[in-house]
């Protein structure tokens, strides 16, 4: 099945979930609703897209789009040498998606990264914890409403004083 046919069959089988299909630099992008993304990705996997090249997210707060967040799946088929991008849109009130770790093992850490930096949860993920920020970190820094300089994280450390030496020295 060619990529066009695969996408056509996805559009047919999941007409409710597929929002749009666009093309950029010769590559197909399938825009879907967050709810139906798992079965669509499963279909792509069954059609030969055996490799999840990347899983990332976009905050559309200032960009516009179907919803606030888009989780982007870059798929690659080694068999047919084809790439396809799937964008799953979710709103900020309920940012939950099904985990695709069961389809591609590499999604494990990438979903943790998206969870850490965007605050998007993944259902049925084996260990959804922060991967880069400290465990006690509050907030999701790649969201556009997160201040660049952070809140108080970078000044929130104990101050270590000089030891016995120079205690009585005037500096």
């Amino acid at each position, binding site marked *: 099945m060619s990529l066009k046919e695969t996408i056509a069959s996805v559009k047919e089988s999941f007409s409710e979930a597929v929002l749009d299909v666009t093309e950029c630099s010769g590559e197909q992008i399938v825009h879907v609703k967050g709810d139906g993304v798992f079965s669509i990705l499963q279909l792509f996997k069954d059609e030969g897209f055996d490799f999840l090249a990347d899983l990332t997210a976009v905050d559309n707060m200032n960009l516009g789009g179907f919803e606030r967040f888009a989780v982007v799946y870059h798929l690659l088929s080694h068999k047919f040498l084809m790439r396809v991008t799937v964008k799953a849109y979710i709103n900020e009130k309920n940012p939950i998606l099904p985990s695709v770790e069961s389809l591609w093992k590499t999604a494990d850490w990438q979903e943790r990264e998206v969870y850490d930096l965007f605050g998007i949860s993944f259902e049925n993920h084996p260990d959804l914890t922060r991967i880069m920020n400290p465990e006690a970190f509050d907030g999701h820094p790649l969201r556009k409403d997160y201040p*660049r300089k952070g*809140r108080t994280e*970078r000044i929130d*450390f104990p101050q270590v004083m000089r030891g*016995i*030496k120079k205690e009585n020295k005037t500096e």
Partner: protein
Amino acid sequence: MSSSQDDIKSNILTTTIESAVNWGRKNSLWPMPFGTACCGIEFMAVLAARTDIARFGAEAIRFSPRQSDLLIVAGRISLKMMPVLIRIYEQMPEPKWVVSMGACASTGGVFDTYSVIQGVDQFIPVDVYVPGCPPRPEGVVESLLKIQELVDTDKLSDYELSNSK
């Protein structure tokens, strides 16, 4: 004057315990490199042949804080690394000195973001700052000489206040 007295005069040197201790300390500083970025790579050049800090007795790089007395913070310190740096500093035995090497360790440099500490001197005491991004090896050697000056002015009486805090 007898010859034995001459021997004594030409073989015994008198000094104060303070100068003797400081002389020993300043000429055998053992650096603990805390290299987290390009400054760490640049620090290796300081150890290499051209600027060789073995000339100043500081070539014994110790990767254990318990065996060192000069902490060289070389590179940007992130949120996750700051507790580690504080722990390393606290593990070093007194007396100890700290060099903040480069723009990132001193001020955060160009990384004015939530995850980069804007100067390690907010949390640990720093003795000498080395500007540069990264500093020239000569700059690091200069900082070493400044630290040696500091060591030389140390008073032994400072150490008697161990329980004053």
